[in-house]
């Protein structure tokens, strides 16, 4: 992290960039928040560690409208999101300086808690892929790979698809099949599938965190915020409404979703929202050829493209 | 005050008359479905009008409490609900709840004072209630000056009443103005704040102001220039409201809820609130 911090401090000092978009130290070791840094003094609080999971690319939509250049720290998976935004002309490349930061997988505080470690007051990442956790009841430890975010087990790879420079090393964390869960559900009977999603989506509180965090959910006005529309953004009065919201949201990002996994990470009720996106990605791959949103700037997306011999619905 | 028994449940109101005031303002007369008034109110109070399936919004009651027969609402067509209301015919039924909020202190601070009413456009609606109340209790108040302006002569509301009642009433002086010159208009031309300074009223009056935010801002500045202090000036605010009883949180400004602690505020009270009203 020190190398990264030195470099951004230098770029800020020599006027190459006007501000840094990175992560700021929180109250605890595990609650770093996205932040803009505009002065050298403020950089004291800059951090980059295993809990810096937030994807910063979406902030660049607004940041790119500010005067001057913004330096943004992007993890490998975030760089796909940025690329997708660039492709959709939502960010300004000229006003962005990208440092591709290394990534050894991001950590899930809820998984640590679920493992029975309570009263966490401090966490340090050790060399040997373990975490040393200070709790109210004394010191504990756990293996990194047991508490990684779901998305890190099916990582797209540790290469940045867009960057100005890269800093820091990465470590491969992929040990799962991205579509395994989708296939598992497909193999279930329709009634069981329905019951499964009923239970999962039934938890939805319509906080809109999944939508607001999603880099490609960037419509200026969301259809669910429309006053003309009686199924509104704020409540699931009927179990239909949560299905409606999540189906439409998944469909609106179909072919554009880079599978960054932010929706599932931020869901306060831990709904596996990525399953919808992965199902669509899997279908697109099977029917229209393998496609990874955000991997490049050229070409059309699967839903803005067609082939005369496409499969029938 | 016979408020609806349950604060959130409206009564059925019948629109018994609709008057086209200007191209985009209509005045609706509302009665209870069994006849008579829906409730008693005080000048400056508001009520929630609801067209089921379309929406619900707060409107000031423009008729005076001294009117024993009905309540009136002057409504400018500017959104979904108001557009729908404008499409209604007499005899239509709507849901009404209220009255809500405080009122101009006609029974306290305003008593015995010379009153200066300053209104712009549809902003006359809440003041009209006070003006007619004052005219019906003429002995309790001093001289009345009414300064009313609009974009054009066609946008002045309640002209019939202004000419036939207010202008004829003893001790009442009406000053009309429109923003731009217009054929057939022989009165004053110019913005309300400028005309106010031109008229240069004595500074011992109590002023009641309502109109578009920008007008209110400049009127206040002009009044201060003329020697008025903020505790001599009242206005009525409009913010988004849903419940009308100070609970839903929408019209919250600082420690105040406009629907319950307002809509009528004295300017020195507004000054103490965070600068978030306009």
């Amino acid at each position, binding site marked *: 992290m020190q190398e990264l911090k030195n470099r951004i401090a230098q770029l800020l000092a020599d006027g190459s960039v006007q501000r840094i978009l990175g992560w700021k130290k*929180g109250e605890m070791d595990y609650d770093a928040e996205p932040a803009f840094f505009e002065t050298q003094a403020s950089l004291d609080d800059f951090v980059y560690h295993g809990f810096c999971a937030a994807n910063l690319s979406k902030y660049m939509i607004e940041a790119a409208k500010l005067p001057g250049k913004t330096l943004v720290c992007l993890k490998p998976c975030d760089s796909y999101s940025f690329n997708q935004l660039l492709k959709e002309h939502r960010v300004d490349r000229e006003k962005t300086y990208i440092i591709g930061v290394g990534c050894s997988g991001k950590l899930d505080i809820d998984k640590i808690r679920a493992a029975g470690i309570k009263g966490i007051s401090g966490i340090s990442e050790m060399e040997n892929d373990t975490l040393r956790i200070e709790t109210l009841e004394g010191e504990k430890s756990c293996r990194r790979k047991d508490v990684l975010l779901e998305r890190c087990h099916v990582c797209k790879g540790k290469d940045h698809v867009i960057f100005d420079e890269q800093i820091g090393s990465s470590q491969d964390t992929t040990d799962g099949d991205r579509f395994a869960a989708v296939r598992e559900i497909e193999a279930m009977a329709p009634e069981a599938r329905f019951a499964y999603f009923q239970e999962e989506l039934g938890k939805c509180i319509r906080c809109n965190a999944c939508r607001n965090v999603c880099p490609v959910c960037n419509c200026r006005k969301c259809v669910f915020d429309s006053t003309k529309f009686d199924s509104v953004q704020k409540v699931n009065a009927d179990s239909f409404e949560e299905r409606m919201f999540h189906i439409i949201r998944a469909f609106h990002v179909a072919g554009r979703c880079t599978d960054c996994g932010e929706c599932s990470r931020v869901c306060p009720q831990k709904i596996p929202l990525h399953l919808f996106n992965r199902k669509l990605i899997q279908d697109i791959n099977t029917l229209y050829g393998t496609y990874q949103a955000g991997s490049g700037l050229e070409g059309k997306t699967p839903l803005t493209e067609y082939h005369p011999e496409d499969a029938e619905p | 005050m016979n408020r609806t028994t349950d604060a959130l449940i409206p009564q059925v109101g019948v629109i018994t008359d609709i008057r086209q005031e200007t191209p985009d303002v209509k005045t609706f007369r509302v009665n209870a479905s069994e006849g008579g008034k829906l409730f008693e109110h005080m000048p400056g109070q508001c009520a929630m009008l609801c067209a089921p399936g379309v929406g619900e919004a707060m409107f000031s009651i423009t008729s005076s409490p001294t009117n024993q027969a009905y309540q009136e609402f002057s409504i400018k067509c500017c959104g979904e609900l108001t557009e729908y209301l404008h499409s209604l015919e007499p005899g239509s039924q709507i849901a009404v709840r209220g009255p809500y909020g405080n009122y101009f202190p006609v029974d306290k601070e305003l008593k015995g004072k010379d009153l200066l009413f300053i209104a712009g456009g549809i902003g006359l609606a809440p003041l009209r209630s006070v003006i007619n109340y004052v005219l019906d209790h003429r002995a309790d108040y001093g001289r009345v000056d009414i300064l009313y302006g609009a974009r054009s002569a066609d946008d002045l509301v309640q002209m019939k009443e202004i000419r036939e009642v207010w202008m004829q009433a003893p001790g009442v002086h009406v000053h009309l103005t429109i923003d731009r010159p217009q054929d057939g208009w022989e009165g004053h031309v110019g913005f309300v704040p400028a005309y106010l300074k031109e008229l240069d009223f004595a500074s011992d009056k109590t002023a009641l102001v309502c109109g578009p935010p920008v007008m209110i801002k400049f009127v206040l500045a002009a009044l201060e220039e003329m020697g008025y202090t903020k505790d001599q000036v009242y206005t009525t605010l409009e913010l988004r409201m849903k419940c009308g009883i100070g609970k839903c949180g929408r019209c919250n400004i600082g420690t105040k809820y406009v629907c319950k602690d307002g809509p009528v505020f004295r300017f020195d009270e507004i000054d103490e609130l965070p600068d978030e009203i306009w």
Partner: protein
Amino acid sequence: MYRINSRQMEMLFRKITEERELYLPVKAGGQVNFAAWTADAEVSLDTLKTVKSPKDAFFPQFESLYTCRTQEGKLTIEAEKRKDRPFVVFGMKACDLKGIQVLDQVFLKEPADSCYAARREKGTIVALACAAPETSCFCPVFGIDPAAPEADVCLWKIGEAYYWKSYTEKGAALTKSVEPLLEAAEDDAVVEKEQARIRTMVKKLPLSSLSLEGWDGAHMNEKFESPLWEQLHRPCLACGTCTFVCPACQCYDIRDYKTAAGVQRYRCWDSCMYSDFTLMAAGNNRTTQMQRFRQRFMHKLVYFPANNDGMYSCTGCGRCVEKCPVSLNIVKVIKAFAKEGAANE
């Protein structure tokens, strides 16, 4: 005081539901939230914080107010029936209870909200002392004692037993109805020892020493005009997570839904973080996210206490601390102001 073995809880729930509805923390889809008890529900009383607060039991996220029907030009308005069945909310924590007291200040103030008032009247609260407060908790900051929730009935779980103490008439009535399952216990010392343990633990919590100095009506405009808001709000996603998990947030929206049986007018929770919160045809007085963000914290920490004898509209439950997608929360806001204040001195 009474005692009941944790193995007997199932029977207790069954007994309660003979005469009353019962809401308690239930695990569904891996998450624990307050829900109606059923024989096959996976009850999780040991869960410290349900995802949503139990305010739902008194102020549901969705609630129908009345239905309008128009037939041949005649409008009829039929008010929804108010809650008329007694119910028990079982296992509320001290912070959630405080949340209800905050809601009381809003909804029971004249003119009282009849839907809420009916639920308050019919509801009996059985609270559970917090055996293991988390590091995200900061209820002592608001004068809350998690070792002694002031509910109709309070429980302490000690070993395999729940100690049961009733404080109010409602509590006594509930106790009476389940008395056959309870055994009398004169173990005040045991409970006091447990309370002392909890209080010692609470003192060690990292956020429990937060200072609220300067958060009052007297500093309203100073706080409002602070340039800090501009910085603080920047990571905010404008989602409603903090609002919807909060036990003390009470803002709501009223909307229409066209059903087969007429137009249903319902109210639902709203969030001051949402862009349409103050939007009206004539304009919007809070157009930026900074203003909306500021409103949430100013309301909780300044406007509300100024209007309610110093009672804050935050209970230190720490749900927003755990759930905010970008780890932004009320604690960080309070600390940022404290830091700024110290720097300016």
